[in-house]
Every structure is written in C-alpha cells, then in structure tokens.
C-alpha cells in the first residue's frame, strides 16, 4: 500500500519524540572531556611553582604553523631567562606536536576549551613572562636537584 512506509516512518519519529533527551544543557551541564582531549597549550610548573620550561626552543621548531615564539636572554650566572613565551591561540590547530616534542614535559594540551572571545587580543597569549628558565639538568632530574640543595 502506498503510504504505509511513510506511516512507519512517522511511528519511528513518534517513538523518538517520546524518549528522553540525549543532549545536556550546556553550559549548566557539561560532559567530561576524555583524558587525551587536546585543547589550548598551557605550561606545567614544578612543585615550587616555577615553570618547567628550559627554553630549549624545540617546541618552536616543531610547530607546523610557527605560532610559538620565545624571547630568551642570558642571566648573569649564564642561565637562560625567558622574556616572553608567546602563543598564538587563534592560529593553533591543536595538533599536539609541540607537547609530544617537549623533552622536559614542560607544556601540555590543557582541557580549556571555551576559547571564543570578543577581544582579538585574547587570541594571542603570553604564556610565560619574565621568568628564569629551568636548567635542563634540573628539569631532567628533580631528585638530583633536591640532592644539590
């Protein structure tokens, strides 16, 4: 009979109309992000609150879009000083290659995902500003540093 299929389809639609919602009411309710979810890049800090970044610039070289830049100067004792660590959030495609490349585990793909902003300035972030870089030796072996101190 012509039209029977349409009626069966209507039954399916009706069944779906009766069931409960499958979505959540964002932003009041949120779904948890899986652990591996990759969002904005952020820095990691050691137990003393100092950044783990050693300013080795590997992440800068690794980024396919060239959106990371680090301005480094030398301190009096020969160490590295990070004047600024600039991250162009608006151009980031969150591929995670910088984080994979970092030998010191100093950066991570955070779970910060509400990145829209009415201010264009928010799309460029200065992740680190005027801080001493961790020494590569210290970052590689925190235990050794504790022994030194």
């Amino acid at each position, binding site marked *: 009979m012509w039209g029977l299929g*349409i009626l069966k*389809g209507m039954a399916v639609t009706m069944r779906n109309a009766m069931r409960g919602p499958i979505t959540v009411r964002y932003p009041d309710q949120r779904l948890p992000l899986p652990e591996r979810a990759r969002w904005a890049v952020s820095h990691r800090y050691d137990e003393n609150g100092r950044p783990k970044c050693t300013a080795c610039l590997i992440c800068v070289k690794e980024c396919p879009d060239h959106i990371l830049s680090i301005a480094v100067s030398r301190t009096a004792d020969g160490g590295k000083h990070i004047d600024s660590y600039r991250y162009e959030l608006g151009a980031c495609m*969150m*591929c995670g*290659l910088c984080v994979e490349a970092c030998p010191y585990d100093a950066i991570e793909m955070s779970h910060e995902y509400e990145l829209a902003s009415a201010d264009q300035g928010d799309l460029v972030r200065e992740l680190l500003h005027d801080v001493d870089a961790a020494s590569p030796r210290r970052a590689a072996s925190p235990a050794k540093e504790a022994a030194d101190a």
Partner: protein
Amino acid sequence: MSDIGRIGPSTGVVPTEGAHRIPVLPRGLRRAPSGIDEVATEHLIVNMGPQHPSTHGVLHILLELDGEVVVAAEASLGYLHRGIEKLVEHRRYHQIGTLLDRADYVSGLHSETALAMAVESLAGIEVPEKAQWIRSLVMEVNRITSHMLWLGTFGLDLGAMAPFLYTMREREALLDILEAITGSRMMFNYVRPGGVLADLPAGIGVALDTFLATFDGYMDEYDTLLGGNEIFVERVRGVGVIDATTATAFGMTGACLRAAGVDYDVRKAAPYAAYAHVEFEVPLGTVGDCWDRYAVRMEELRWAGRLIRQLLDGMPEGDHTAKVPKGLRPPAGESYAAVESPRGELGIHLVSDGSDRPYRMRLRSPAYFNLAVIDEALSGGLVADAVATLGSLDIVLGEIDR
C-alpha cells in the same frame, strides 16, 4: 560533454525544413516547441552554490536549464583551496598529517593512514601488527561517522529532516569515542608514520560494544525512515544513473562505482592495515542510480559495524608504533599508497629527494573524480533531481579543492 560556453538547442524541437524559412536565432535562443514561431525561448543558466545549502560546502555548479530540464552542468571549484599540496612541501614528514586532516575533514584518519603508508614504503619502516589493527579499527569507526553525515544530509537534500537529527546522535557517540582514542573529534593527527600515536585507551572496547549493541537497531530505523518511505524511493530510484562504463571512464571509485556494479574496493584489491585478516563483503549495486548509491552505503555501514566487532575481538598484543626518528629522511624515490576512504580510493603519491621534507605530494582525491561526472549525471534530468544526484555522490569540498 557539452560546456556552458557553447549553448545550442538540445532537448527542444529541432526546426525542420518547412514551408517558410526560419531565421537563424542568436546563440542560446531556440524556438518554442509549440509552433508559435514568434516566441523564442532561451536556456537559463542558474548558479547553484557556492552558498546553496545542498552543495555540501562551497561547491559552485553552473546549471544550464531548458525549463525544468538540466541541459548541462559544470562544477566550478576552488572556493576552499588552501594549497595543501604545496604547504606539505614545507613540512617534515610527521607534520603532514595535520594538514591532511583538513583535506578530507570528514574522514581524516583515512588520509592520515594513506600518508603513513606512503612514508613507510619510502623509508622502509615495518609497522607492528597491533598498529595495523588499530588503524583499521579507527578507520572503520571513521567510515561510520562519515557515512552518518552523508546519510543525514542526503535525507535533508530530499526534504527528510528527521534522519539528520538521528544520524547526528550516532555520529556524536562515535566522535566521542574517537576523541577518547585520538584526542580530537575531527582533526585527529593520530595515525603516524610507523604506527599510531598511542595505544587504545582503557574502556574503549566497552564504549564500542555499547554503540554496536544499538547500531543495528538504528540502521533498521533509518531503513524505515528513508528506504521504506515511498516519497524518498520515488525521488531516488532511476535518478542520476551513472552506469559502469561512465563510472570507470571518469575514474570514479568508492560507493559511487560499486553502485554501478563494478567490484572494486581497495580493501579487497590491495589489502592494507588489517583488512587481510578480517572477513567482509563488498556490497554492489546494479544500475548505478541514486538508490543504488544509497543502498550500497547503507550496506557498507552495516559491514563497518561488523568489521569493528571483528577488529575488537581479534586485536593482537604488542607495540602501537615502530621506532621512527623525528627528523625522518627517507631515501630519494617515489611511493604511492591508497586506502578505501568513505568516498573511494584516496591515494597519496610522495616524491622524496632525500631531505626531511617531501619534494612533492599529490593527493588523489576520490571525491574530485566522483564529482567530475556531474555533467553526465545531471544532464537530461530534472533540476529538482540535481540535488538528489549531488547528495548521493557524497562529496567533501575540503578534499576536492585541497
């Protein structure tokens, strides 16, 4: 093939030698078929897209219409051109995948795998068994998400609103699973030369089990909603016929080719990843009309579900990746690797000059070849059927324009 620039009488009544001499009309004008000689009619050229909602992205089609009948169609491409093939020449081998995700943004894992296979054959990398199985698994999950999007939008094109909402439900469930595996919902960057980025996370088998338990029921629902709907069937049956000869002549692949009855599937013809170790059938159509393309893809969806089950059950133990140096420098040479993406044979041709970046990369986009047939497929049909035919081709402009 006719083109838009050369317009002439085609479906109208051709003036015969009569009692009175008929004046030569300007190009593009022809006589009304009713015999009213004074009234001349004209072919109309309609721009379909690039903002048309059923052109699946930014496709611009010039339709030459004779009333309701399409006389010629020409696709105008390039609105989404980003120069990916050129950009790749400035990326190291492990960075290329990030761009290829954005070529075919609906099924990124397939282009990533094709690239990984091309790099592996260039550099002679042996991929661990487990990585091969994970690749197949995520590709089949990706195939379902891609086909779900096609199914929903194909319904939308034909005026069926409900299936779109329901297919998004399944797509969401699988995108969540893919996010748990790869870290991203669409721009995966997961399959790398040498293997995959990371092993499957704990609990992913349970998540896929939960999905597969409901999947067949949902597929039956779609069959009721679309395949059983008389209006839908009448809109697609016998519409946009692309026969086997035309399809092969245009280099079509994937479901569009198989709908015409040609048995060609890269997974069977040249098994890659773990496809040699699993059992599956390749559904074939007969006529090559929109209905066949619909039916073939629906059957492919069901097979993808069964493949996921087999791949989960047979998942071997071992490493998820081989040791590959970051600054990979394959020896000079060429390689080609192809995968069966949801749209057809997606191939990557790499040329290496021995440096850490490819000298040239060429992406064989299946949707590009499938779209090339548009003039043959639309000509002679009704303008209302154009969206049906276009929807059934399942094009992704990101991959066509690159």
